[in-house]
């Protein structure tokens, strides 16, 4: 199963490092990563592989949400299908 992690918020030091550490801890592999500043907001998208993940999707989503509030950014994880079905015919 593949998913997309979206991080939106105010830029600060260590966002990528903390999120990737969390993902690595649970066996989530980062396949691609892109970041940009849009309308003054730090916006990062990670394309990740959940094949060998050691926790449930629900728990991972919850942990990322908590990490997001610690960092003062919003972190979402959504299955890749939602983007594919919306933007690709």
């Amino acid at each position, binding site marked *: 199963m593949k998913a997309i992690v*979206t991080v939106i918020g105010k830029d600060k030091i260590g966002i990528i490092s903390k999120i990737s550490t969390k993902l690595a801890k649970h066996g989530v592999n980062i396949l691609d990563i*892109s970041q940009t500043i849009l309308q003054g907001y730090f916006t990062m998208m990670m394309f990740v592989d959940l094949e060998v993940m050691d926790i449930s999707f629900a728990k991972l989503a919850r942990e990322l949400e908590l990490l997001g509030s610690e960092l003062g950014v919003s972190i979402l994880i959504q299955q890749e299908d939602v*983007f594919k079905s*919306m933007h690709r015919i």
Partner: protein
Amino acid sequence: MINPFEILETVQMIEKQKLDIRTITMGISLLDCCHSDMDIACQKIYDKITYYAEDLVRVGEEISLEYGIPIINKRIAVTPISLIAASADETDYVKFAQTLDRAANTVGVNFIGGFSALVHKGYTKGDINLIESIPEALDITEKVCSSVNVATTKSGINMDAVKQMGEVIRETAQLTADRDGLGCAKLVVFANAPEDNPFMAGAFHGVGEPECAINVGISGPGTVKTALESVKGESFDVVSETIKKTAFKITRMGQLVANEAAKRLDVPFGIVDLSLAPTPDVGDSVARILEEMGIESCGAPGTTAALALLNDAVKKGGIMASSHVGGLSGAFIPVSEDEGMIEAVNKGSLNLQKLEAMTCVCSVGLDMIAIPGNTSAQTISAIIADEAAIGVINNKTTAVRIIPAPGKKAGDKVEFGGLLGRAPVMDVSKFASDEFVSRGGRIPAPVHSFKN
């Protein structure tokens, strides 16, 4: 891979523009639950619903979490109860409604629809009993929704049923007077009722439907409005194209959720309903889309044309995005459930007459409209007759969900809470239609040629 702008667009549609899936509705056939002993029939109904829908809420929540898209309601629609209850020896069908309510509470759904009767051409014994049970059923149950189909294009309008439904609506309002007539918010009178509608209060599982099916209703007025903000001042060609593209994206989301729910529940996918369903929240209003097109306040001249364009463009965009489209599939204009409509009524730009005109070009009739509590049953029946005529002649679904708010007069407010929202009480004509309504009989089916 999907590009970052597309990802952000989707995230913002959900986070900022309130895009959601309004409902996953499981249709369940109860045709095998008939029995002459009402208690046995009710037990069969309870067992069947709780067996089929056991995992509905859990699966809905899982999909919502994994795809990151809110799914607001999980609902059940069943075979019109008049067909099932007709086999029972008893004539009071309130117990069937209580059974539906109990089953809905057990599986945790928000609403259950199908306390219904189809009487467009005439009544069976079961239909008579069911309709007489409606006021009490809606008073003592919480989640049960009721609907009665009084007209179709092929059979005309059953004016006896129209007359009776005016009385039933009044009685339901009186019984639920302590809740501003809330019972009437769970009762719809239809012309050309669809058999696969996932939206309440009019959902039921038609006799042409399979044993069980998953139907999904989408939402997303906020997304359409935001898209239109980027084409301010452009021609209607551009407006229409923009709505089509947005509707396509919204519907694809609905199709994905529908497929996934059907797969996980091992139930066939039925349809996606393309209706743009508003909520009372700011930023989730159909009226604001019409205003974005250049109407100062919803109801001003131009509103009907704007709504016609919106409704048509949503269908054009949505139809390609879904393998099966059905249900009501049109923009909803429920007054109490749409923040922009409420404000338009309060400002005086929108009245009952204009709403009636608007229902000629969209689903789904006069919806969630509070009228003075002293409105006569005959006037309510005449309003139903007008709306049914629009549906019958134009070969489309129309409905009336109207609340004669007990003790309230025009300009007062009623508060239903949640998705049902709050409604300003609207004025109705002071002129009587009593003699018209009391004629009874049937208005014949219209000719289907010579259309002008």
